[in-house]
């Protein structure tokens, strides 16, 4: 299942248009765990919502949602674009593909003012570490000997993750499932989940609802309404509960009827591979490190045209 990504993105696709997929609503039998992660996050965005997204996996999920089940969702990026329909991977937060069909091109201050005003429904962020209350760290790994000033690993920093968790209606966290990442004690709190438990967000007067879902390459987690603690909602196909427990440092609560995460459809997988034909984000292959300039440019341009054509055909 993993590592068998077809870079041409033709998992059943025919004639160049990713919408021409045989049995598009059937479960895909060929998908990677990274693709499952992206699809699961995309499904958290409801049609018509304002979705605040960053670069990488969160943006690819937002773009996928817009091209599949949520065509009327509006993507918001912190660099100033609203309403874009990027016809491919967004490499950086001011990537000019965000100009395609954008309704608003403004500045970062305005976007975060609107965010703090409570105007955005759902945000998607990434993180390096998370604790049971959904607080995240994307700033430093201090290790046993280190400190904020002298960390073992310097991570990129908050970006917009702090602001999204503080003020967005609800927040989806996407990250890798590792025992050192699902930690009993964060090295640094970059973005506020439920802080130290029930009532803490209310004390600070945060406009947003906080973390709602955590999606990893192994499982999906929610948060208990009373205790605000994370619990296991579903495991991905082929992963059992014990395997997930081993990758969590605290005693993980498990839903009474823990489910299996629904697998991607054939349409979703075909669309993802059309959005990211060079495997820049999904990274199931090393293609992005091997492709030459001319082939990269030609591939990107061909797929942009495919996706832009879908809109023109409507």
């Amino acid at each position, binding site marked *: 299942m993993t590592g068998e990504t077809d870079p041409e993105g033709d998992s059943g696709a025919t004639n160049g248009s990713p919408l021409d997929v045989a049995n598009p609503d059937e479960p895909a039998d060929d998908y990677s765990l990274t693709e499952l992660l992206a699809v699961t996050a995309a499904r958290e965005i409801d049609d018509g919502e304002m979705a605040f997204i960053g670069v990488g996996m969160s943006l690819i999920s937002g773009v996928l949602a817009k091209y599949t089940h949520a065509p009327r969702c509006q993507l918001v990026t912190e660099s100033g674009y609203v309403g874009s329909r990027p016809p491919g991977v967004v490499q*950086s937060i001011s990537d000019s593909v965000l100009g395609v069909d954008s309704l608003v091109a403004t*500045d970062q201050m305005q976007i975060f003012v609107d965010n703090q005003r409570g105007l955005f429904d759902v945000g998607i962020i990434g993180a390096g570490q998370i604790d049971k209350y959904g607080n995240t760290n994307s700033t430093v790994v201090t290790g046993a000997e280190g400190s904020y000033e002298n960390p073992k690993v310097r991570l990129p920093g908050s970006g917009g993750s702090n602001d999204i968790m503080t003020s967005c209606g609800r927040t989806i966290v996407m990250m890798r499932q590792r025992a050192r990442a699902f930690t009993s004690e964060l090295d640094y709190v970059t973005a*506020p989940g439920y802080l130290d438990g029930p009532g803490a967000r209310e004390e600070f007067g945060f406009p947003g609802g906080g973390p709602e879902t955590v999606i990893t390459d192994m499982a999906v987690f929610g948060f208990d309404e009373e205790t605000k603690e994370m619990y296991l909602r579903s495991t991905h196909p082929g992963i059992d509960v014990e395997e997930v427990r081993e990758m969590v440092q605290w005693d993980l609560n498990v839903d009474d009827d823990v489910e299996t995460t629904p697998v991607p459809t054939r349409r979703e997988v075909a669309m993802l591979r059309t959005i990211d034909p060079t495997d820049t984000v999904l990274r199931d292959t090393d293609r*992005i490190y091997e492709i030459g*300039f001319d082939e*990269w440019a030609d591939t990107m341009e061909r797929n942009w045209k495919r996706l832009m054509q879908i809109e023109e055909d409507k």
Partner: protein
Amino acid sequence: MSDTHDKTQTLQTAISDHVPDGASIAFGGMGGRDPEAAAREIIRQEKTGLRVVDDARTTLFDAMVGAGCVDEYVGSWVGTSLISQGHNVRRAVEEGVPKDLTMQDVSNFGSSLMFFAGAMNVPFVPTRSMLGTDIAEHNDDIEVIDDPFGSGEPLAAVPAATPDVAIIHVQQADRHGNAHIYGNTVNDHLKVRAADTTIITCEEIVPSETIAESPELTKIPFYTVDSVVEVPFGSHPWHCYGHYYADLPFYREYGLRSQDYDEFQDWLDEWIVPHEEYLEKVGADRLARLEELEQTINGGKI
């Protein structure tokens, strides 16, 4: 600074006149419309002791850190791209190579607000962001205060940033510094107002009549600008909206070669050259292809 004299300079002169060793600097753009050529010129002139006061930074910051130009960073995010970490930043913070880099974190909204406060000429502005987290805890400049009007609500006071220099790359400007920005603005309109001195680099210098035809695009006015430099492809390897797409294979190579400090020195030797020579090395065909790609997605918007 309301004069409307001809402020055009060469890139070399603009940097040597306005960026002394030890200066604090804010750069424009954000993974798109970044003033990469200006940053390479700062490295070429071997500036030292710089304090970068900024928002989210990619390759230009990582390269300046690796070249030993920067002592301190205040901002929200550092890396290089989707496909590479900021290896030079990590080496400097974790190992002190080539020298220690002091980091002071804010959130992205925090970075906008510090320039807004600077542009307003007030000591701070309040926000709900960063409350309850280690950003406010570890950043000594951020204070948590109670609403002075008595609501009891806590607020994070974000201090004003007033960098010595702002360096912003735009699509077009006139000789007096009226700058048209197409697409998103990020924090650039605030940075030029917060800074003491502003250098505008642009794809093209245009007559003031062209500016006056679309004054709503003038996000940066002449009275905030001290120097104007025409630098075609001044954001390469990043995007310049309406002009050219990002050169991912180029910054992919940067990411790979910056993993090792010695290899990065070779990268510096190869690419830290006068801008005209840099463009020749990238190659006219490749640059033209990047222009074509941008036309495919945003053709006709400029």
